[in-house]
């Protein structure tokens, strides 16, 4: 093979980007950034084989490739479809996609308990963000929501099966990050649930990562349970010399106290590096850590309500002169703030 691999050109919502061959549409869109990135509830770039399940990242391929310009007959899951040279993709410019995505969000919510007021995930919940952006304000579902029997999966991780959207991320973590998988999916259809092997406890060095990858409040930190709302806590980046993991974490402060420790997340809500249980649960004193500084929080996040950062126009808008003019009012407002 030659040293330089020819990059492929893909156009997403009118913006062209050159990416490595084999990149998925979703990752190509993430390279562009901004509004045109399809939401992803189940895809996780660090977990092999994830994606394709939640269907929120559906996009329309209006031109297959340069060689075969036919459009794809159905909407495709952008996280599992690789780009072809000359491919044209419509995401937020296609009413069909918006309509389908709205449907998916509604489907995800019909059996969700919507107990955000008592849920520890509220404020950093992907489903909350997704529903806020795409969902209708009212449900058309008039039946009792499904519930599951509570099971105890150990003293560190709290499982709320009712909130689960079955993204399968935690089972991939168990498969790929931890050395001993004890939990998986039981049952079929809307009765399928995350469970351990005959209610065994999840207990190994990296099991806490299931909390970070969970897009909803189905898996939460038992040591942080009902302690505080996330938007009242202040995230601070810190690190320590850890023999098992990278030791790069975010500490969540309330006053002087560290309420919880999580892995650092990137702008797409994905963990940058997985951390071990010692970092997560056992080192909750400031002395244990070397503080780097406050975590950057996107200004759209509810967590940023305590520390406003400068609102920046979306990267897409910054790149395009036409869009700058079209969004002049917002641009000016942003610079004033």
């Amino acid at each position, binding site marked *: 093979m030659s040293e330089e691999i020819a990059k492929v050109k893909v156009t997403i919502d009118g913006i062209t980007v050159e990416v490595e061959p084999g990149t998925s549409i979703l990752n190509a869109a993430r390279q562009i950034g901004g509004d045109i990135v399809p939401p992803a509830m189940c895809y996780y770039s660090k977990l092999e084989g994830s*994606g*394709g*399940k*939640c*269907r*929120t990242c*559906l996009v329309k391929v209006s031109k297959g490739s340069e060689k075969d310009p036919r459009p794809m007959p*159905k*909407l495709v*899951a952008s996280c*599992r479809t690789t780009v072809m040279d000359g491919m044209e993709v419509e995401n937020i410019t296609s009413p069909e996609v918006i309509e*389908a995505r709205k*449907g*998916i969000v*509604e*489907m*995800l919510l*019909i*059996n969700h308990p919507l107990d955000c007021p008592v849920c520890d995930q509220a404020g950093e919940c992907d489903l909350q963000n997704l529903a806020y952006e795409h969902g209708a304000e009212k449900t*058309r*579902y008039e*039946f009792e929501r*499904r519930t599951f029997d509570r099971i105890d999966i150990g003293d560190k991780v709290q499982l709320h099966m009712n909130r689960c*959207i*079955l993204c*399968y991320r935690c089972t991939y973590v168990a498969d790929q990050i931890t050395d001993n998988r004890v939990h*998986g*999916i039981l*049952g*079929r*259809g*809307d*009765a*399928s649930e995350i469970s351990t092997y005959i209610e065994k406890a999840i207990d190994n060095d990296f099991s806490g990562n299931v909390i970070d990858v969970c897009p909803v409040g189905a898996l939460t930190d038992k040591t942080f349970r009902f302690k505080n709302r996330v938007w009242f806590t202040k995230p601070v980046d810190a690190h320590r010399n850890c023999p098992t993991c990278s030791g790069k974490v975010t500490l969540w402060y309330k006053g002087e106290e560290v309420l919880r420790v999580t892995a650092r997340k990137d702008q797409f809500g994905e963990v940058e590096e997985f951390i071990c249980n010692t970092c997560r649960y056992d080192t909750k004193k400031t002395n244990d850590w070397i503080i780097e500084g406050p975590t950057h929080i996107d200004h759209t996040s509810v967590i940023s309500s305590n520390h406003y950062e400068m609102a920046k126009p979306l990267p897409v808008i910054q790149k395009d002169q036409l869009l700058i003019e079209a969004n002049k009012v917002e641009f000016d407002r942003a610079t004033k703030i």
Partner: protein
Amino acid sequence: MARKLLLENINVPGINTFDVYRQQGGYRAVEKALKSMSPDDVVEEVKKSGLRGRGGAGFPTGMKWSFLAKPEGKARYLVCNADESEPGTFKDRYLMTYLPHLLIEGMIVSSFALGAKVSYIYVRGEMMPQIRILEKAIAEAKNAGFLGKNILGSGYDLELYVQPGGGAYICGEETALIESLEGKRGNPRIKPPFPAISGVWGCPTVVNNVESIAAVVPIINDGGEEYAKIGNGRSTGTKLISASGNINKPGVYEIELGLPVEEFIYSDDYCGGIANSKRLKAVVAGGSSVPILPANLILKTITGEPRLMSYESLSDGGFQSGSMLGSGGFIAFDEDQCIVRNTWNYARFYHHESCGQCSPCREGTGWMEKVLHRLEYGHGKMSDIDLLVDVAKKIEGNTICPLGDAAAWPVASAIRHFRDEFEWHVTHPKEALERNYGLANYAEFTNAI
């Protein structure tokens, strides 16, 4: 009576044993293929025959075979999909019960054509008797030297295994079947890669329906061109139809494709008319997942042409006024049947069988079932009907595998063609519990015979 290729010797006593089957000319196709043909010749012959997949999608079998990747040093597999669980379809079970050797003969020839050294028959877990019958038949064939090492001195080795399924409808989807065969949870895989590139244990795999594989036998015996002469247009050959519902003679019939639907329903050679001299109300032409059609549209297409039992004719008019041949599960409803109840029943089935992997299907099938249940039991609202249409639309095409489509189509089509009956359930809830809506607008077409 029309020509029979598969069920020709079905009435010969003891045809399920090797000796009788051999006396009736069985295993000729194996001899012919292994001794005088190359694997590519067999594929070419199947391509010439125009045989289309009998499992539902109707994809040309020869074409599917030619897509199989043939990388060096990698095994290739043939898997026979005998996980027949579509409501209304029972032809494969019939074939396996009475003609197990026909399937095995087809498996040997097809495996030879694809270069598979190991092949599997994935049988639905509930079909225990058929699993035993097949295992016995495989042992007989192995004794006679048609399986195992160096078959008939040709140097070709083949091992054939029967794998009992886990008992889920979803395992009839080819990638879910492969997962289940590998011993995993039967979740459909995300395509691409297609099984022809990466199937069982990451090796190139072809998954074919029982009937498709059985049909290879007459194709090799008589030649592909001869086979292609039977049938109508691009629908060649014969097809097994599982006829059920309110007809006088339910059962499995082998028809030449292109037979008029009217003849199939009313001729004494086939269904023998509607039972108890009732009138025909609706037909599900290809198993529960295809759109239901009212009597007027099943007998004649929207343009007034008589509708034929073929892939093209049944799908004439698209989803507006057509249906699909599917797997050939022909279910007839007489005037006393309630379409709402039937639709609810189907929705309940798909709700129960959804694998739960992708969200539209997992959540949507249950939602549709609940709304239909409410309508059927007299608690529905007028807005429920549009809600069902909308939910079905949101599921259709947005799922990983075709189960979502299969769940959405019966509901969408029932409302499209029988909306008045759904509305009647809303406006007359008490009456709806006591009696059925009857024929309504479709009465004038049912005096055809």
